[in-house]
């Protein structure tokens, strides 16, 4: 499963999308992003296929931008050196 962020037009669209998806049993987290259309906007983070999400949001007339993969978090640093 791959996590993506789907840019939307505005916070209003993002909230509308998140609630709609939630009503359909899909978790979507709203985030502010700086690399979407026009430099900054709000998007939704989801683990679901972006094509499916965008098709669902089209039903409620929410326009999606190009989804962006979310890189996996870096591995945690190793424990400090153990004393012998």
């Amino acid at each position, binding site marked *: 499963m791959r996590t993506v962020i789907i840019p939307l*037009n505005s916070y*209003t669209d993002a*909230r509308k999308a998140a609630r709609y998806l939630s009503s359909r049993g899909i978790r979507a987290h709203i985030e*502010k992003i700086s690399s979407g*259309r026009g430099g900054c906007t709000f998007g939704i983070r989801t683990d679901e296929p972006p094509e499916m999400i965008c098709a669902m949001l089209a039903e409620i*007339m929410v326009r999606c931008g190009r989804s962006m993969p979310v890189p996996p978090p870096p591995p945690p640093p190793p424990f400090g050196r153990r004393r012998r």
Partner: protein
Amino acid sequence: MIYFDNAATTYPKPPSVIAAMSRALVKYGANPGRAGHAMSLETAEAVYDAREKCADLFGAQVENTVFMPNCTFALNTAIKGVLTENSHAVISDIEHNAVLRPLYALSKSSGISYTQAVTGDDDSTVREFERCINRRTKAVICTLAGNVTGRIMPVKRIAEICRRNGICFIVDAAQGAGVLPIKLSDGINIICAAGHKGLYGPMGTGLLVTDGKYRLKTLIEGGTGSLSKELAQPDFLPDRFESGTINTAGAISLGAGVDFVNSKGIGTIRAHENALCRRFFDGVSKLPTVKLYSSDFDERYAPVIPFNIGDLPAEKTSQLLSDAGFALRGGFHCAFPAHKKIGTADTGAVRFSPSVFNTMQEVNALVRAVGRISARYCV
């Protein structure tokens, strides 16, 4: 002070609205729809909740429900947004200056013309509106209910005329929202409403609700928290018409006002206010010096009654009533054509407009006060 000036703004506000305002100022202090930090997102969600409530009230999509500083700003946005140079508009003959003044300004700057349809009973009003439409007509603007006369306009029938002629129909719901049922599905393209009258929100709030059919030019441009790199104003709602920081606490508490209206029910609110108007009308009509400007008060009217006491100037009557502990507005109510219509162009009138919080006892007390003023000044 017993307050009967609710057509200007409702007072008192419901405790839930006051609590929502206070909570908003304390808890929702970040600028909504701008940052991604937790407080901004929480504030944005609270604003969204309020927006959704307002949208549901008018049967609109949430994104097509725009918060405005007041109904006048909403009307200016709609009127100036839809009319093009040298186009024509039709309005009723009882419109408020919030409709008249933008049109007058446009007539001076952009060659726009407008015709006032003479209103009467519903059938003649509808015929008049249709007669006034010409090939240059781009918009019809009509009040839902007059702020002086209280007369309810046949907006559904006017909407059908506009639909047949491909004309944008804008309704000024300042007096009617929260008291009369009104939805976009009535055939209306744009509803402009005050948040601080029948919706019991604070002053400094209003709404522009649209079906999205007509693309409006912007009145102002600025920061919207979206597409910051682009110089062009966003082309999507609500951002397109919400430049700058909105009245966040106002919007959130307006949502509480809509909750209050829904909890009471528009029908119940109207029945209560109509009963108060009925009592007032019946009471003062027995006083020989009191002038009323309709033959009766009935379902044709929103809860607004203009009156005068003898030949007393309306402002004088209003002052005397204020001295007696009653708040009513006397004058021309920013709607001079309405006063010309009812024959008070020279004197103005005093306006009785109750709210859901007024009582029969208060109305009876007002009637007695009107009687005392009449006896003292009009013998």
